[in-house]
């Protein structure tokens, strides 16, 4: 009887391991640093995490559908550059519209190549990463771009402002997270995404038009990146043409950390939010403790592997792989 209880306790521990680790983290950090649990600090974490968070929401959809999207980093660069540059040329509203449309177009290309032509998503989005990076450079001619009237434009509200006391970026993240959650968990489309990722063959055999579902996931992911670009552009009011470099890996790390499987068919927005927050708190906590910003990468390395390992171990019922 006691043995059974121990077994089920271990199972709960490993299944909810990531959540528990997260809580332990928070407790640990707040014990070590008294600046950790202050409202100011928490707000700072959420603000920082907003951009990766918004992008991670879209990528979650792509991953649940069984694919990868490595092009989000360079898409962030392109979109930020676009919105910042066009802001002075055609006004903020049009700039935003054009940026989002451009992002959707990129998403559509990805979606068609992976969903309809059924090419491998790793290689396709790798190729797109390169191509979009090039496009960005061509557009800017290698120059940085910035916005002139930084203090007077209402565009600042996205990255620097607040609505009803809540920083806009956090609001956008939260609203988007809620919307995406509802779409994934409560619409026919969301169900199709899970099915297409969990068992593409069974999905097709059940009458799901898999190609269209994949196309939609990539377009939504690109749209999210577009929104993140608006926040980023608004925050910095300028952009280097490689500002998004490396983001695709941080975003993917957040999704993986949260517990969504790269194999597809499972996962959730809630999990990704936790993953994003874990990454954000690691960064924040270490900074507060006086570590240089790059120490978080070392910690993330260990945390990712541990998190996925525990997850896998729980599923297969043994700690070490059968080849060990």
């Amino acid at each position: 009887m006691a043995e059974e209880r121990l077994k089920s306790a271990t199972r709960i521990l490993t299944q909810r391991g990531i959540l528990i680790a997260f809580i332990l983290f928070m407790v640990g950090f707040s014990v070590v640093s008294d600046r950790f649990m202050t409202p100011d600090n928490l707000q700072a974490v959420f603000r920082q995490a907003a951009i990766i968070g918004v992008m991670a929401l879209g990528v979650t959809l792509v991953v649940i559908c069984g694919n990868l999207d490595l092009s989000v980093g360079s898409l962030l660069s392109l979109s930020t550059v676009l919105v910042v540059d066009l802001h002075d040329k055609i006004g903020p509203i049009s700039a935003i519209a054009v940026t989002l449309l451009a992002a959707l177009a990129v998403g559509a290309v990805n979606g068609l190549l992976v969903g309809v032509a059924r090419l491998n998503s790793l290689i396709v989005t790798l190729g797109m990463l390169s191509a979009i990076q090039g496009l960005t450079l061509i557009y800017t001619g290698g120059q940085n771009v910035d916005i002139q009237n930084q203090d007077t434009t209402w565009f600042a509200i996205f990255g620097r402002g607040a609505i009803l006391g809540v920083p806009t970026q956090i609001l956008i993240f939260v609203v988007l997270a809620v919307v995406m959650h509802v779409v994934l968990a409560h619409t026919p489309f969301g169900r199709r995404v899970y099915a297409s990722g969990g068992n593409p063959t069974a999905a097709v055999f059940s009458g799901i038009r898999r190609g269209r579902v994949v196309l939609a996931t990539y377009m939504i992911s690109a749209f999210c990146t577009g929104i993140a670009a608006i926040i980023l552009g608004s925050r910095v009011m300028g952009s280097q043409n490689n500002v998004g470099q490396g983001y695709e890996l941080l975003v993917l790390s957040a999704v993986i950390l949260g517990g969504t499987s790269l194999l597809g068919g499972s996962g959730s927005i809630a999990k990704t939010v936790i993953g994003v927050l874990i990454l954000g708190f690691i960064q924040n906590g270490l900074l507060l403790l006086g570590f240089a910003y790059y120490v978080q990468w070392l910690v993330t390395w260990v945390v990712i592997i541990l998190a996925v390992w525990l997850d896998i171990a729980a599923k297969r019922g043994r700690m070490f792989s059968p080849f060990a």
Partner: protein
Amino acid sequence: MNRTLRWLSRNPIWGFILLIFVFFSLANPFFFDLQNFENILVQTSTIGLIALGMTLVMINGNIDLSVGGIVALSASLVVDIQGWEVFAGWGDWQLVPAVAAALLAGVALGALNGLIVWWTGVDAFIVTLGAMLGIRGLVFVYTKEQSFYAANFAFSDFGSSNIGPLPTLAVVFLVCALLVHWLLSQTVHGRNTYAVGGNRQAAVNAGIRIGPHMMVNFIILGFLAALAGMTLASQMGASTPTLGQDYELWVITAVVLGGTKLTGGAGNIVGTLGGVLAIGILRNGMNLMQVPAFYVLVILGVILIAVLFLDRQLNRKGQEGYRL
């Protein structure tokens, strides 16, 4: 003639190389020049060395995203250690501990990646994704974000030296290519590499020990990445902490262009050489034609996707499959 055509359809990258070779030779007088060809070899040797090792890992059905970090770490180690006080009176022998440390680091990190994949069963993609972040963190911690400058002249001269008529770095690359090709085609370990990637269950049933096998290939890749880092540092006469960023993408692109399948089980060094050369010729040729570097990125991305597309079209056999 028939056999040549058949070989070309199996290794289409060389047909592509022929095409662009002829194109650039006609388009630009500076291209078809012995010195220029030597330049191409040297320029591509860094990515080329890593691609040799990546071929082994990918035929195994794995992938390694951390090679860029290993490049940076080994470059920093070799440049830093050669200038240490304790070796000041050693003359050129001060290079021995420096080179040894750099290569050891590559081997150790490769072994670490391989060990984690072996014991935990976590997918190589995730393991090396974490390592990519973490090793970069190690580099930053070690260098404290500083660039190092080579103290030893023999070291910095090495990068531009010649062995007989050829640049040393080109020779190093070609020798390594020959060695890895020999390994893959002539040794038991090399032949097993195809089995482990092509039909893992059959390999297990045949008694091949998968874990140690895969670890060996990760170690070889780590070694070659470290070697690449050293040759790069020699050419620059220095090391920077951001060295090698995005290298994994170029390497994977070269390997996939060369015909290695992402799913494992197929690929060869001749093909990888082709992929590396194709990228090298494209960059060199477009550079000579004064095409801005930005366009190269776009073209490379498009080519990668086009190759994937063609591969799918050519390999879709008969009517036996579902029209899904």
